[in-house]
């Protein structure tokens, strides 16, 4: 059996080297698929077809399996995120304390449904299952920063701050 040569990097973009590094660290083993996809997502912000194809070929995983994994796990996104992201936690504690109202407020304000990005690519509205900050419910993550005990007014204020920029 001839030795396996991984496919060339898709482009000169340095981020591919980071992705390749993760795979090399795991000896291009198939079980590194999820780890590698995590690296792609953290480097590029999302997973596009080229990335999935490249990772699948490098790890010798059938494309169907790679795509199956990407679509199975909620954490992976096939669409590029907006400039800003607001993630409303919809865990049980947040739900009991009115997370659904927060989501409705944000949807109305942005004119998009949860999981979508505004047309200008400015804000993405996501819903998380639970971020583990239940004691401060309802919680939202605004560009990664945790805001606890959030009211609808605060949500609108935050979103307006982003639109003004």
């Amino acid at each position, binding site marked *: 059996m001839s030795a396996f040569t991984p496919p060339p990097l898709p482009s000169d973009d340095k981020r591919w080297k980071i992705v390749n590094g993760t795979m090399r660290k795991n000896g291009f083993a*198939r*079980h*590194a*698929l*999820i*780890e590698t*996809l*995590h690296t792609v997502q953290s480097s590029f912000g999302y997973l596009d077809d080229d990335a999935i194809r490249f990772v699948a070929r490098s790890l010798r*995983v059938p494309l169907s*399996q790679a795509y*199956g*994994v990407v679509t*199975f*796990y*909620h*954490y*992976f996104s096939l669409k590029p995120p907006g400039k800003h992201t607001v993630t409303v936690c*919809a*865990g*049980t*504690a*947040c*739900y*009991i*304390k009115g997370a659904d109202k927060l989501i409705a407020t944000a949807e109305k304000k942005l004119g998009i449904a949860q999981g979508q990005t505004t047309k200008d690519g400015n804000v993405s509205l996501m819903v*998380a*299952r*639970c*971020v*583990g*900050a*239940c*004691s*401060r*419910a309802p*919680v939202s993550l605004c560009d990664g*920063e*945790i*805001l*606890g005990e959030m009211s609808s007014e605060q949500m609108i204020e935050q979103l307006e701050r982003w639109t003004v920029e």
Partner: protein
Amino acid sequence: MTIEELEQIAKSVQQENAKYDYELNVCMDLACASQGADKLKDALVKAVEASGKKVLVRRTGCMGPCSHGPLVRVDPEETTYSKAKAQHAEKIVAQLGGEPVAELQCDLNDHFDSQVRVVLENAGYIDPEKIDDYISRDGYKALLLVLTEMTPNGVVHRITESGLRGRGGGGYPTGLKWGTVAKSHGDLKYVVCNGDEGDPGAFMDRSVMEGDPHRVIEGMAIAAYAVGASKGFIYVRAEYPVAVSRLTTAIREARRRGLLGNNICNTPFNFDVEIRLGAGAFVCGEETALLASIEGRRGTPRPRPPYPAMSGLFGKPTLINNVETYANIAPIVRNGGKWFFNMGSERSKGTKVFALTGKIANTGLVEVPMGIKLREIIERIGGGVPQGHKFKAVQTGGPSGGCIPAEMLDVGVSYDALLKMGSIMGSGGMIVMDDTSCMVNVAKFFIEFCMTESCGKCIPCRAGTAQMYTLLTRICNGTGTMDDLELLEQLCCTVKEASLCGLGQTAPNPVLSTLKYFRNEYMEHIVNKRCGAGVCNMEQAVEVMA
């Protein structure tokens, strides 16, 4: 690393700490951090420098009562300050040695007095990123003791003797599980830590991994020695970036100290741990799905047997335990199985950490002995339901659990008692609901959760939860009929009996338990087209009737 060296480290840390007159422990867990704990810590450091006092400012993991955060504990006086902000820093430092700052003091005696801390014994006392802090509080002593003085069988025996049951929710006897893996044949075995805390409303495992990561690693290493494994994986949710980074640091530090790697403590024992990231799938908390995910595949469960103890990760015998289970191991080894056995109720031993959230005054983490009454947890430790509202139910066990009504609050918390009430222990989320929550809507919330989280492999779960969701939606918007209710109950049975894994088998629990205790609310929705709590929107029903 030998026991003597370990004691040397502990001693030098104690000497170092003795140089200071006071300690200011600042809780930097997620809840406190989101309220400005990092600014507070910086301000405290500055204020200490300016004052010239000998004060150690330490970052710690979760202290517990998150709703009072940011928290600062002054040692050796053990004064706790709540809602401390950066502007209070100078005053806090100035008052050291004198009268405590009155405006920041809060009375949490009721909150702490009924708690027994085993898993959380270090929470609020150590810096999670410093291995020496952990060692100074008897850390890794149990591991070295096991390696030098005990046989693997002896360890399994001690765990069996303690009566510890799996803290992930199922409550399978830990000793028995270890024994099975130890007896399985195989040159290679794995130890896996389930840190995929997918249960919404629970964050105990996150706090343990973030606040005391070495405890988990030590527990895993002891387990590996007992079952004959040399490789471990910690499966952590990607949604917990801090836990991932703390564990990564902890593993690196442990390797550096020779507490992970080859020939640990100059014995032939080799063990190393790797972190694997979850990717947001609730079903991956199920053991066979978790293993599939570590192998880089879709997290779909498979039928058991063969159990992972026989054929698990990469087809090798695998031990899977929850974070909290591993966190209990070191104290059991140190203090003996009997010590643990004497805590708790008849068939549930030891303590349990609960994440107390929802409509309750003191939200946060609590650790209580098994067998304690729910009322005690909610009214005394939790401080009851605030703002003059009336307690309605407490939800335990997340989407696999059920809602327990007020009249059952005098039951002691144990695996069996909760099961009997139609709920489960689960991983430890405890969500309190008051009269502003509609129980039908809560049931709908959980079924929607299970519907989206169902992996789709088996039909009862995939199609059953979807149908249940449709029925519940109808009842919630006032278009449901009595036939719908009957069909819903039948479906609950089918999904419960016929699903492949724990997700499906327990998915109907929230519906069944609310039907059992709050049937009147369902009836009111169906017959009177009215939602007592005012949560459900009944406009559609009014249109139909008109």
